């Protein structure tokens, strides 16, 4: 184990003088802090004609303020601002090995942060990190293993994104070229959530019957918050707003098109004041109704027709009259079975991704304990 500072050059950033800033790409691009990192690359907003500290291609740019430990590889010369440091691997250190080491040391580095408004680390904090220093060949071998494991989980995430696309593509295929002359009211009963006067602040308790408001509709799913619930007695008085399996809950305030499908575990929950219940009519497949309400086109339509200047708001008439395509029941069912197939795959990939993450963490910890 050696101190990081003894095998790598640490350049602490320094803000160039304010009058040298410009947005017209004059001089060197400036990395002020992690705010200029974007998805693993550098996206500078300002330039400076009088750079103070500079990094070279191949250096690692490390955030030392606020989001301490975030890092990107430098692909060119940049001016290092106050929020970052540049790390250049010395002759005994492989830079890819250093990269992985910094990932592993992120938490330790973060714990050294000091400061009242936001946390910050200094040169000593970085320099004092202890890094195992096997021979260069060994370092390269370890880095290659970690690269490989990282590549696997990246591809797994891509697979997941593709499955998402696939699901949308399948829905689009199902409704493509259809006649949008139907109305929501033809395929679902629309029931607006209880008026505020039916649900008072003092009605809310912990661990009762959950109330579903737009904030509980996340990524197309209902996420129950037990602290947002009412007593069973109160809920019993609001029977018209109790959810049954297959209902679609649609948010009617704020962001449009937030919708969740009521599964078995949500049965009996209450539709909140900010939501409405769409109960599929005979011959309408709930999953299809859900996909329809969450579709881009429906979202657009609702957004355009929503009322209210500050907070967009839907009433039941707007939703009842929203146009929908005509789709036969067997086609809806075929959409559902395809969608379910994708959902199962996505679940499997999700589990594989969890395993990938676990594998990577295991390899990382062994790598720097000399057990790899």
């Amino acid at each position: 184990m050696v101190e990081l500072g003894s095998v790598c050059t640490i350049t602490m950033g320094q803000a160039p003088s304010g009058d040298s800033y410009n947005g017209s790409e004059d001089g060197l691009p400036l990395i002020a802090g992690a705010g200029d990192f974007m998805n693993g690359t550098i996206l500078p907003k300002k330039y400076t004609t009088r750079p103070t500290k500079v990094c070279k291609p191949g250096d690692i740019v490390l955030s030392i303020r606020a989001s301490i430990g975030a890092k990107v590889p430098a692909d060119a010369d940049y001016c290092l601002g106050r929020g970052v440091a540049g790390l250049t691997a010395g002759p005994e250190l492989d830079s890819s090995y250093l990269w992985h080491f910094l990932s592993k040391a992120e938490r330790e580095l973060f714990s050294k942060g000091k400061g009242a408004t936001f946390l910050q680390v200094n040169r000593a904090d970085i320099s004092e990190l202890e890094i195992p220093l096997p021979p260069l060949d060994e370092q390269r071998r370890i880095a290659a293993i970690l690269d490989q494991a990282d590549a696997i989980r990246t591809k797994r995430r891509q697979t997941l994104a593709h499955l998402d696309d696939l699901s949308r593509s399948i829905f689009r295929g199902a409704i493509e070229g259809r006649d949008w002359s139907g109305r929501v009211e033809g395929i679902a009963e629309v029931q607006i959530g209880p008026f505020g006067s039916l649900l008072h602040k003092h009605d809310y308790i912990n661990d009762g019957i959950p109330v579903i408001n737009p904030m509980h509709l996340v990524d197309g799913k209902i996420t129950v918050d037990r602290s947002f619930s009412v007593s069973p007695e109160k809920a019993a008085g609001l029977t018209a707003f109790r959810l049954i399996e297959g209902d679609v809950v649609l948010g009617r305030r704020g962001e449009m098109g937030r919708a969740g499908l009521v599964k078995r575990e949500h049965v009996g929950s209450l539709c909140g004041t900010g939501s409405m219940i769409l109960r599929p009519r005979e011959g309408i497949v709930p999953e299809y109704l859900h996909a329809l309400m969450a579709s881009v086109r429906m979202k657009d339509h609702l957004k355009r027709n929503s009322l209210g200047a500050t907070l967009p708001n839907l009433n039941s008439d707007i939703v009842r009259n929203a146009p929908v395509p005509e789709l036969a029941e067997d086609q809806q069912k075929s959409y559902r079975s395809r969608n379910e197939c994708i959902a199962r795959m996505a679940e499997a990939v999700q589990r594989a991704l969890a395993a990938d993450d676990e594998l990577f963490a295991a390899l990382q910890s062994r790598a720097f304990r000399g057990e790899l």
Partner: protein
Amino acid sequence: MITGDLKNKIDAVWNSFWSGGISNPLEVIEQVTYLLFIRRLDELQTRAEKKARVTGKIENPTFLPGQDHLRWSVFKNSAPEVMYRTVGEEVFPFLRQLGGDDSTFGEHMKDARFTIPTAALLSKVVDMLDDIPMDNRDTNGDLYEYLLSQIASAGKNGQFRTPRHIIEMMVAMTAPAPGDEICDPACGTAGFLVEASEYVREHHADALLNAEQRNHFHHSMFHGYDFDSTMLRIGSMNMLLHGIEAPDIRYRDSLSEGASEDADKYTLILANPPFAGSLDYESTSKELQAVAKTKKTELLFLALFLKLLKPGGRAAVIVPDGVLFGSTKAHKALRTILVEDQKLDAIVKLPSGVFKPYAGVSTAIVFFTKTNSGGTDDVWFYDVQTDGFSLDDKRNPIEANDLADVVARWKTLSGKDSPERARARTDQSFLVPKADIVAQGYDLSINRYKEIEYDEVEHRPPLDIIADIEALNGEIAAGVAELKEMLS
């Protein structure tokens, strides 16, 4: 336009008021209004005296013998302290008793109060006003406009100064003719009336050569009501300085019982009535409530306009969005009247930033003709996206501006083969047949009729995506095998 030297002078006076302790822009304008009026009295007298040299007798003298020191041309030359004493202790009391001047304006002066705090400030203002050539209608009007543009606060009763470019558009669309009787029942600084008068001057210059027409123009064409006496003074001074000799700008609570005498009187109403204003419900005209039983001032004003217009008269009215779709009985009743009993011509939807930074309220302009016998065929809708200014609180000028297009398209409408007839509902403007509006329960919001072209996000065919997934799965499998090798 007020530019350069003159603008700097006015700005300097404005600053003097501020540092002199008058920070309310309305009060500044009010004081300037008094002084301009005092100067005008002097000029009228001078003119009468010139005439008297021929006729030998001064007709209707404003200043009696012994009152010469109250004249602008006299006191402007005295020392600041003397001037201050004269104006405060003699000229203003004189103003208050005057009451005449044969115009409603003299009437507005009866509660004139002198509030300029120091002699130095008064002399500065008098010097500045004296420098401005009063015989030039344009300069006068522009000077006043410039002062008015500084009124930057919303009134207590829901009044907002209507942006000048919106007024211009409404006037251009309604195209006032010399024979019109124009009324703004909530006139404020009389911006609509001033713009309408300028429009007539510009487009019907010939008509004003005719004595009868000219008399109509100066004495009976423009009518404005307000219930804020400061606004009335300012409004009528604004008209005066734009060269209207005796505009009818009067105190009137337009929504109260007393307003009924003017029924069927006007041929054109241009207005931005207060919304969400406070209302003395008890004294609200029963007749208006019979049309729309509501406390909403915007609806009561619409009901009032229907009453004030002569059959055949036109109106262009700024309303808050809610009027177009509101679901109360009164909302629906009024919309039904507009569509079924009168002729609803157009709805021009404005972007919601138009009244910023004072209010983010979303508004539209309703154009209708009073017929009392229906006649709505197709209603023209226009969705204004930009009015030439950014829609945030800063309202910086920007390049994009739909307003000229609104006027241009509107003007083609009367033609048989107007391009508007062929426009699809996905366009920025289009016509909607009455039957469609009835079918929508008289909802007039543009979104009810506008169709959106949905450009769906481009999705690749499922099989392509699956091929990618398969390839990835292969790579993952190979990668895992390789990794296993590396670890063994």
